[in-house]
């Protein structure tokens, strides 16, 4: 693979074998759709990721200054006395971490590395990842959801706002992909 990528911390597969290929995208999509459906059937709501970040951010703010956190209308929504839904999404992401870890491990894909375009150094890539994360976090808050909570979850129930969100995301990302093509190509 790429010589600049750090060596694996532990060989994911026996020497001479390589990581397994990804599953067929349509098959994985159907599996993901069934997980989403199961979430609707048992919990009455779909999947989500942004809410977990909002909860953690509110907890951090609360740890620094409870008065300040409760006075902030955004943080306060995620601190509302023991609201189980906010913690629900944190547990969902803990489960997602475990599920992805097991999948990657079984397929021999787990290793310490940096995913980047060929022109970027590792340090540059960490900067774009962090910067992009900040922008995505702000965007997800404005949109009241992200690719999980809006696009997937809302899309499957034909939520109009979610479908508009999805169109906006892809429009902006395709435009940015052309302008910033040196980051990935």
């Amino acid at each position, binding site marked *: 693979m790429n010589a600049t990528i750090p060596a694996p911390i532990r060989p994911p597969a026996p020497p001479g074998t390589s990581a397994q290929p*990804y599953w067929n*995208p349509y098959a994985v*999509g159907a599996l*993901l759709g*069934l*997980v*989403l*459906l*199961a*979430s*609707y*059937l048992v919990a009455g*709501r779909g*999947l989500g*990721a942004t809410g977990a*970040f909002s909860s953690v*951010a509110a907890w951090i703010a609360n740890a620094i200054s409870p008065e300040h956190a409760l006075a*902030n*209308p*955004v943080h306060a929504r995620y601190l509302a006395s023991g609201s189980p839904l906010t913690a629900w999404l944190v*547990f*969902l992401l*803990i*489960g997602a*971490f475990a*599920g*992805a870890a097991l*999948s*990657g491990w079984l397929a021999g894909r787990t*290793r310490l*590395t940096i*995913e980047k375009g*060929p022109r970027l150094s*590792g340090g540059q*890539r960490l900067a774009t*990842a*962090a*910067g*992009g*994360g900040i922008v*995505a976090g702000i*965007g997800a808050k*404005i*949109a*009241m*959801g*992200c*690719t999980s909570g*809006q696009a*997937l979850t809302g*899309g499957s129930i*034909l939520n*109009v706002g979610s479908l508009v969100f999805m169109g*906006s*995301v892809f*429009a*902006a990302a395709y435009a*940015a992909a052309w302008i*910033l093509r040196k*980051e990935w190509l």
Partner: protein
Amino acid sequence: MLPLSSTLELSQAANLGLAVLLGFGFGFALERAGFGSARKLTAVFYFYDMAVVKVMFSAIVTAMAGLFLLSTAGVLDLAELYVEPTSYAGAIVGGLVFGVGFLVGGYCPGTSVAACATGRLDGFAFLAGMLGGVYLFAELLSGVDAWVRESAVGEITLPALTGLSMGWYVLLFIGILVAAGLAMRAAERRFAGLRPPG
């Protein structure tokens, strides 16, 4: 009658255990699709690997068909499911900002968790950035938050908006998926040369 949450009062522990279980399936599927890799995710924006659209679209169609069939069979009450209120301004502005963050950062919030779980350091950087962005939004942009919430016009779904029942949309989306699948196969062949080495 489903959803279970409408008829059964689960204990807090059972509820959170359920969240972990559902999340496990969520994360497992994301990683199996290759979405723990920023290169795989951003490939969709250069047309040489359309897996992101294939996975998302087939997941949406699968869940939509399931919701429709179960509600038609009378075992699921769609009215009991949570639908996020629509704010057109929030969806458009937030979507545009999020799209730029997705391309530059290489992940979305959920997939960055899958990246971390398989050792991708850029996944950790994105995750930290995302947390910072959400924190900054709460501290500096609570006015925007209030504006978006005020601009929300309620729970609007396409069937309610158009009067066309959900079953027709399931058929329509299956049709679009088949057509898009053929188009994506052609696009992947045409743009195969854009795939970076390594």
